[in-house]
């Protein structure tokens, strides 16, 4: 299972901040596609992704136990 973290508007949209989803062997892009269908989650195309706390490409392949965070445009400072 992949641990997924959601923040800011994504968290509000889904109504939760963490979830587990089957995704071993999937790319980040495939996981995004799956989440879009399963949760009707909009706007995943324009967010950054972090895998295990480092920014990652859409092509990055995921393994069970990975933590994937979807990171909307940041606004700290």
């Amino acid at each position, binding site marked *: 299972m992949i641990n997924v973290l959601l*923040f800011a*508007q994504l968290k509000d949209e889904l109504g939760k901040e963490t979830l587990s989803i089957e995704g071993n062997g999937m790319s980040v892009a495939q996981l995004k596609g799956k989440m879009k269908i399963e949760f009707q989650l909009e706007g995943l195309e324009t967010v*950054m*992704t972090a895998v295990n706390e480092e920014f990652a490409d*859409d092509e990055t392949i995921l393994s069970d136990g990975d933590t994937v965070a979807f990171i909307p445009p940041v*606004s*700290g400072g």
Partner: protein
Amino acid sequence: MNYDISKEPIVIQEVIDKVVNRNAGAVTTFIGTVREMTKGKKTLFLIYEAYKPMAIKKLEQIGSEIKERWPDAETAITHRVGKLEITDIAVVIAVSTPHRNDAYEANRYAIERIKEIVPIWKKEHWEDGETWVGNQLETVPYPKGKPEEVDIDD
């Protein structure tokens, strides 16, 4: 530790103390405070949220980038999370260097990078609603799913 995400109010002097040293002739600080009016709209309060472990890593990365460019610089950054009222402090960046120009330049570099790569989000609560603030740099979204190299490295 020089890079922190804090639920408690930030004590500016404590951040400065982390960078003062015998070879520093200049310390600059940047203090981000909650402003009431933005383009004629009145903010009531803000909520800051962070992906804390990654945010600390990214603040450390900014410190490393500064060290590469300004080897004599010492940097400390604390960012607040939670509910902030008008005039409350959201972030304090302190940079010390032997000479003043570097202290200004490196400090400014830090705030720009925070706005690019550190996973922290701000929810503005206005008189007439609330919204997560998008990319303040108004750059394009991230078609590749992560910041472009040019964003990360410069």
